[in-house]
């Protein structure tokens, strides 16, 4: 009896800590964003949000996010497969290299692309000859976005695949199944939730990326400004209310993403229960 009571105490204590922590570090900053965004009323809010440049920034952000998610998902699945299903030398170095982009300062991430494709680069004459613009244009933004979200999908998949082991795949292979069948039938059911988490993580990070994109974009209004950069520009114009209004779009996009995730998860888990 006493045991149970203290159990409950611990439970509520931990819940309380979590709630307080999230309240202080997540809810309050969001509260600032939302109150500032609506400071001058809904009409002004709508005006800021439907501004021509804001809409262009939303489209560009979506474009970069979609590119990043697709490429990183394809990469993540293959990388996770390679790392967990086979033994080979240099695996640790490989996984470290995959993780590295998360920990590279966004400033450096932008810098390396400027150095690789900018006017200082040995590649530049070649790029100029074919009139290919990478830095200070959309491809640079897409590349930077891919870079900063690079490991998110593989990071989620690798632990799951690792704990699952290789027995099932080996069995399937011995029974003559080919690669794609094994993946579809055996591996995929194990990783689908992790994959979903990875995609969501990747997409939300891609939307919010600021530092690397800022170095690479050139801030051309209406052309290479993503939403976070547009927010920065508005701030620098002393337009605080519109800046927070545009930030709130990102919050809404993130929340939409999380709702979609919950729906997929909910449906999926129900299905497995029925089976």
């Amino acid at each position: 009896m006493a045991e149970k009571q203290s159990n409950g105490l611990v439970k509520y204590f931990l819940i309380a800590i979590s709630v307080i922590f999230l309240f202080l570090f997540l809810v309050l900053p969001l509260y600032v964003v939302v109150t500032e965004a609506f400071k001058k009323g809904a009409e002004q809010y709508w005006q800021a949000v439907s501004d021509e440049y804001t809409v262009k920034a939303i489209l560009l952000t979506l474009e970069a996010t979609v590119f990043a998610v697709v490429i990183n998902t394809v990469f993540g699945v293959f990388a996770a497969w390679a790392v967990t299903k086979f033994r080979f030398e240099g695996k640790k170095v490989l996984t470290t290299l995959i993780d590295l982009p998360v920990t590279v300062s966004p400033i450096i991430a932008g810098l390396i692309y400027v150095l690789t494709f900018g006017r200082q680069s040995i590649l530049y004459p070649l790029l100029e000859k074919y009139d290919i613009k990478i830095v200070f244009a959309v491809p640079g933004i897409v590349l930077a976005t891919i870079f900063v979200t690079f490991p998110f999908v593989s990071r989620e998949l690798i632990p799951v695949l690792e704990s699952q082991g290789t027995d099932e795949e080996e069995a399937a292979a011995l029974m003559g199944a080919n690669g794609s069948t094994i993946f579809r039938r055996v591996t995929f059911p194990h990783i689908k939730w992790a994959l979903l988490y990875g995609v969501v993580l990747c997409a939300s990070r891609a939307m919010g990326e600021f530092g690397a994109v800022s170095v690479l974009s050139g801030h051309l209004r209406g052309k290479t400004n993503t939403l976070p950069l547009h927010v920065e520009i508005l701030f620098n114009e002393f337009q605080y209310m519109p800046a927070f209004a545009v930030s709130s779009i990102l919050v809404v996009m993130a929340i939409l993403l999380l709702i979609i995730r919950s729906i997929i998860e909910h449906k999926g888990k129900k299905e497995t229960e029925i089976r």
Partner: protein
Amino acid sequence: MKKRILSLFLSAVFAAGALTGCGSEATSTETAVQDNTQAQTEESKDVTLTNVSYDPTRELYAAYNEVFKKHWQEKTGGSVEITQSHGGSGKQALEVANGLEADVVTLALEYDVNAVKNAGLIEDGWVNEFDKNSSPYTSTIVFLVRKGNPKDIHDWDDLIKDGVGVITPNPKTSGGACWNYLAAWAFAQKKLGYDEEQTKEFVKNIYKNVLVLDSGARGATTTFVENGQGDVLIAWENEAFLSIKDYPDDYEIVVPSLSILAQPSVAVVDKVVDKRGTREAATEYLSYLYSDEAQKIAGDNFYRPSNPDILKEYADVFDLNVDLVSIDDFGGWDAAHEKHFDDGGIFDQIYEN
């Protein structure tokens, strides 16, 4: 089957190895695919210009671009589309030097335009290409204090008093902050009889009172205005006026006895306009800045028009009696930069030990 996969893998490894080894030619093919969509947006029969500028000129160019569009239409019958880019002056110069395609640059300092020149994009002698050293408008450095001036700040020597919190951006990351620093230096020099050591001590004491060293001018304004830090903001005159306009009851401007003539520079980026065939429009864009109409826009946006007649019309706005030194008193930008802001220069020494 197995063999095919193996060979595929090997070729991929070798391709990767070759790429990392010698700097990669194949990169272009990959990026070319991504890039096709990009190129076609440019080049229709009407002109498009890109103006790479610095932070506080947004409102100015937003207004000027409208006027220039009309002017261009009347003059040539064509239309012109102007894309603006704003940011820290040094950073903007750097991006142009690294391949950001700007037809014109309108930056905070001659030094930053020279950086673009040194990258081989602008020809020598650009300073004389337009009137008044290619500075169509000027500004100066003033103090913004809280209403009623509770700390009684009137001149530079009030900034070294105990208990005065100063907000100014970092000259290392903000072109505008170089002007702040040099104005303080010029004042101290004059007051202390051009004694280098004492001048340095004076400036050092100012920076001792600096509470927050923001990375840019607008960040510093936010720190002072929105977050209520410090007692005095050293700011561009036009920024200070903008803050007053937004919060007329909270702040006032104090003009020190001596300040500096800040001359923002404009230039046509020769390499880019020759490549894109926009020289005529780019040159007209900058020279029209000197027209009466444009000069008035500058004045309305709290920049001092470089045309003295127009400047007089704004005599009730600007304090025209302030003693202004110019960058020439420091021996030009290159000398000033080397002495004060380069690695190990006086600004660094102020913060060491």
